[in-house]
């Protein structure tokens, strides 16, 4: 019954999105003015109904209703409660339903709260949002119905992929989706503005908070995903350049560029066409990412159900939306007036450099992700592109970007003198030089990228707080604090990455209980391996006693887990976090002689990566609050 209710709600929501599109389209014509007011409530109603459909799916999962095909193939009655919940989006159909739910909620939020955008542009925006929704409703209803029944119902379900049975999964996909799909708002804004030919500073000011909000979720989602991969996969790495990770990174890069160009457009009315382009590209990257992941066209550690039919369906949707938007861009942007101009040495100049560098990184990641596809199409050869390419191609560009980030906020709008900027950044440069000297003296033989990374992180960290220098801190607007915190977060994150790659110590041993091993500053005694049982798994658990110098010993218990449904092994790393880094231990296989593989890592300052990521998101949040507050004040006046 619940499943049927959900399906009905989904159909009604789809019909409402069709109405939203049709009413919006008519309202934009001169004789359809009467319809203008209907579009907003329809957008809200659509979100409510798809929300009901999503709730129904959650209920079906919580009750482990095995007569629903999706539940039977992804859940199991023995699964702990929180994973029954998380299992809702741990599969193709459920995650696509989450996708349209977020899309509709984003549209409804615009319908409810957007007050700055001229009404006609707003209607065009909501119509564009409905058009996107419509295609994905069709995809759900015709090619991935989450509420399909199984007859007869099986006695037991297949269970959820054990890698996904982790508290992180309960929150990671929804967070990422709010960013990933929320950025659709920017796309719809751009399409709306192209339709009404209304691209200018007001449009940028209206769009900025929405972009910021989506970007905050995206940043949090990527940061959390990276930490999840780090402790759950047990490989000790925090980024693998896996296609699915790239699929989330590419929209983030585009959205970050957009965030900066929209500021130029809002403040100086420059970069009109470019900003619109980025808004289209950002969400296009989300859709391309969804396609790459969902079609299974690229092989990945996140392999989900693969179905070429579905791939074609999403590809057709992609072609319609992205192709349509780019076509509209080509036809209309020529008629958008050129914006203001500026000197190369200026805040705008730095922001343009930021945009070009971010776009370059985006290009590098896109090429690396798609290259295997291209090669296969041309020569039929299978290959994969790995970290050596991404690190060596994107690394230097990213470092240049951090350098620009350090200097940019210290330049004035419109026109500045290179000398003046240099004098403002002199102290950070000096600090960076000292860091370089220190590293060369105390840690000789570092590779060039990690070395530059640490030096730049130190310099950029100092430079990022420089905009607050000699300012009245009370009267500094909140969004300036936001920028400072976010930029500082980038520096902190970079410091973590560089330190991890420069100073990580790794020890691999085959040990019998009683033996000791050392890694970095730690002595680790291997005490025992014991079998233990969890709710739906059994595990071998090692007991390790770690000790740093003469400090107090502490116990770590890495596990190697065997899940029964579906039968899979996972390793649960044991991680001890200290102020100056993490001790990361993994229990591997045993051999006939009763020796166990132990992998031990000491990763100095690795936690800075995620601390930095969180700071970036926090900076975004401060900016958002600052912008919304100021916007309210302006509207009130």
């Amino acid at each position, binding site marked *: 019954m619940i499943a049927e209710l959900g399906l009905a709600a989904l159909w009604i929501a789809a019909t409402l999105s069709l109405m939203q599109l049709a009413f919006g389209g008519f309202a934009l014509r001169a004789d359809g003015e009467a319809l203008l007011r209907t579009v907003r409530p329809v957008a809200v109603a659509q979100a409510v109904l798809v929300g009901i459909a999503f709730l129904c799916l959650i209920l079906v999962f919580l009750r482990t209703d095995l007569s629903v095909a999706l539940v039977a193939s992804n859940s199991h009655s023995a699964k702990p409660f929180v994973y029954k919940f998380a299992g809702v989006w741990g599969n193709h159909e459920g995650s696509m339903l989450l996708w349209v739910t977020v899309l509709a909620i984003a549209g409804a939020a615009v319908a409810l709260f957007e007050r700055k955008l001229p009404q006609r542009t707003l209607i065009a925006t909501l119509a564009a949002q409905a058009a996107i929704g419509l295609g994905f409703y069709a995809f759900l209803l015709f090619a991935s119905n989450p509420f399909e029944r199984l007859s007869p119902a099986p006695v037991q379900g297949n269970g959820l992929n054990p890698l996904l049975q982790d508290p992180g999964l309960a929150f990671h996909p929804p967070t990422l989706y709010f960013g990933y799909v929320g950025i659709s708002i920017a796309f719809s804004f751009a399409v709306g503005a192209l339709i009404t030919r209304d691209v200018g500073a007001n449009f940028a000011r209206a769009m900025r908070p929405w972009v910021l909000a989506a970007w905050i979720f995206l940043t949090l989602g990527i940061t959390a995903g990276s930490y999840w991969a780090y402790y759950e996969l047990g490989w000790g790495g925090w980024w693998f350049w896996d296609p699915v990770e790239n699929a989330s990174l590419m929209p983030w890069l585009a959205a970050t560029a957009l965030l900066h160009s929209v500021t130029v457009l809002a403040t100086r009315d420059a970069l009109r*066409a470019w900003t619109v382009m980025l808004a289209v590209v950002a969400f296009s990257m989300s859709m391309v990412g969804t396609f790459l992941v969902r079609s299974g066209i690229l092989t990945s550690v996140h392999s989900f159900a693969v179905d*070429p039919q579905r791939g074609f369906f999403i590809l057709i949707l992609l072609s319609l939306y992205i*192709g349509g938007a*780019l076509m509209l861009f080509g036809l209309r942007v*020529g008629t958008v007036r050129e914006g203001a101009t500026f000197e190369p040495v200026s805040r705008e100049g730095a922001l343009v450099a930021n945009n070009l560098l971010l776009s370059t990184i985006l290009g590098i990641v896109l090429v690396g992700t798609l290259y295997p*596809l291209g090669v296969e*199409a041309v020569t039929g050869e299978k290959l994969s592109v790995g970290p050596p390419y991404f690190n060596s191609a994107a690394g230097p560009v990213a470092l240049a970007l951090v350098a620009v980030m350090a200097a940019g906020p210290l330049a004035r709008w419109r026109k500045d003198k290179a000398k003046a900027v240099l004098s403002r950044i002199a102290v950070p440069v000096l600090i960076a030089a000292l860091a370089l000297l220190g590293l060369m003296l105390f840690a000789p033989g570092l590779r060039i990228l990690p070395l530059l990374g640490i030096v730049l992180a130190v310099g950029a960290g100092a430079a990022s707080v420089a905009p607050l220098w000699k300012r009245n801190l009370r009267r500094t607007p909140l969004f300036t604090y936001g920028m400072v915190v976010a930029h500082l977060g980038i520096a902190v994150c970079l410091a973590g990455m560089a330190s991890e790659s420069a100073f990580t110590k790794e020890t691999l041993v085959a040990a019998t209980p009683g033996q000791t091993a050392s890694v970095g500053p730690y002595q680790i005694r291997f005490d025992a391996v014991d079998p233990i049982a969890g709710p739906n798994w059994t595990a071998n658990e090692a007991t390790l006693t770690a000790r740093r110098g003469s400090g107090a010993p502490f116990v770590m218990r890495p596990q190697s887990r065997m899940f029964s449904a579906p039968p*899979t092994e996972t390793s649960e790393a044991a991680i001890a976090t200290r102020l100056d880094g993490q001790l990361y231990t993994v229990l591997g*296989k045993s051999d*006939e002689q009763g020796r166990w593989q132990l992998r031990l890592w000491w990763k100095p300052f690795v936690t800075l990566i995620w601390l930095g990521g969180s700071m970036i998101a926090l900076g975004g949040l401060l900016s958002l609050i600052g912008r919304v507050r100021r916007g309210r004040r302006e509207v009130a006046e």
Partner: protein
Amino acid sequence: MKRRLIIWIPLAVFVIFVATVAFSLYAPAERVIRSRMIGKPVPAFALEAAAPGHQGLTSADLAAGQPRIVNVFASWCVPCIAEAPQLLALAGQGIPIDAIAIRDRPEDVADFLAKWGDPYQRIGSDRDSRVQMAFGSSGVPETFVVDGQGVVRYQHIGDIRPEQVSEIAAAYEAAK
């Protein structure tokens, strides 16, 4: 004029992307990475019996005129338990299956077979994974179809899922 052209570049890039991807989707989907061993004779080897009641396996056994399936497995491998029913189903269809047990002990193999079923005819014991690597196999379980002349015709990486049984059976028929 220049601006006019630049404006269309994104659309052009996107069209190329769609064309490439559509081609990849349309092209026969061989999502399993094919082995370099396909079309090549099996490496020369002679393995002792891995479990009581079974004979050992040599490369000569795989070139005896009839196609055979060779399953690479281990008693300590959990996915091997998952694929056991599928191997039993294949054996039930009259397909001869030999096995190579990787880094295993006879008593463990015997336990494994007693618990999860025994679809195998010959089982060779590959204590140091040498033969496994010569087969171009990097993990357990893996399954090979070898024709009557001892030439590898098919390789399946990972456990055989229930829906893949027919695929393996078809590969066996094709090797006849």
